[in-house]
């Protein structure tokens, strides 16, 4: 028998063992979650106390007068901006400051923090590595 017909026969005869067992399968009393994170604490008295800080809240700036919309028109041509890289960001933001200070003579190799150098990610709310925010 060919491979595919054997597969078909196996699926016709028995249950599908290889698919993921999600909350859509099983009996209606079977309660299986889909990986939602808890938004509070379960007490010993089996009550649930919801904690405001654990519930995610969207912080959105005021969008009045904002011209960009969800979709882009088909008439727009391809843009000609080069893609943003770390090198280009450095060249645009940091390099002018460093050249200005160097020409004035106030460039100090030990004090690079004022140009944006972060020697370690400790103490920051949004760390770049390991990335602790979801974009």
């Amino acid at each position, binding site marked *: 028998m060919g491979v595919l017909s054997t597969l078909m026969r196996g699926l016709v005869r028995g249950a599908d063992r290889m698919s993921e067992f999600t909350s859509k399968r099983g009996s209606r009393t079977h309660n299986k979650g889909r990986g939602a994170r808890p938004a509070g604490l379960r007490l010993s008295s089996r009550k649930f106390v919801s904690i405001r800080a654990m519930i995610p809240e969207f*912080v959105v700036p005021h969008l009045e007068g904002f*011209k960009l919309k969800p*979709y882009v028109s088909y008439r727009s041509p391809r843009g000609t901006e080069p893609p943003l890289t770390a090198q280009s*960001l450095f060249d*645009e933001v940091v390099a002018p400051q460093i050249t200005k200070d160097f020409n004035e003579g106030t460039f100090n190799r030990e004090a690079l923090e004022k140009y944006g150098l972060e020697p370690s990610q400790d*103490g920051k*709310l949004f760390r770049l590595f390991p990335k602790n925010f979801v974009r």
Partner: protein
Amino acid sequence: MRETDFSPGQQVALPLASIIRSATCDIDLNRGTMRLTALLSMAAKVVVPKDYRFGTNRPWTEAAKRRNPPGKKRRKVFVEPLGPEDWTILKGDVVEILAGKDKGKQGKVTQVFRHRNWVILSGLNTHYKYIGKTHDYRGTYVTSEAPLLLRDVALVDPADRKPTQTEWKYTEEGERVRVSVRTGRIVPKPVVERRDGIVPQQWIDGPKDTSPEDTLEKTYVPSLKTLEEEVMEKLGIREDRRHRRSYWY
């Protein structure tokens, strides 16, 4: 031997694609185990032998595989050799038929087969057939177009709308265009249509579409802050709490 759970006389038509999609299986081949999805995608890219007879069906479709199984050899079909630079008829052109059942009619080219110098026009040179026949249903009666050879078809001159022979020539700017031999008028290239039928230049923006000017406006100010830090600064949110130290393994 286990008993099957359907009666032997009944025909069970199982949709093959849905069954295969629900289960990911490993198939043992001579060269080792391989996933079913890999096997199916391997079959999609078909390698065609040198004396393959190209038909109207694309070589990776089931109909073409049924007509040209790997071991068959068919009588060779002779095709006038025409290089890719000399090919004058493009998909979407308006073209007139010079010989055959629909001689003298003009139509738009929907498909071009370079292997056999064929061209299929929409709605011309048709015959009728039944599609989707089953044992008790006669099928849908559809009209299907037959391919026409390149020598039986000629591009239509846009000036006087008569068929002409065309050649590739260079304009003064250096652009390569098709020029009709009889009148000398340039035959413009047909508009390449998108699969979804949208013509970008004639698109009318909906309420959720950003206009092209707004899209191309450069409002980015490069800075070393992340988006989250910038938004916090703008809205005046101060966050002094820091995450608790946690570990994962």
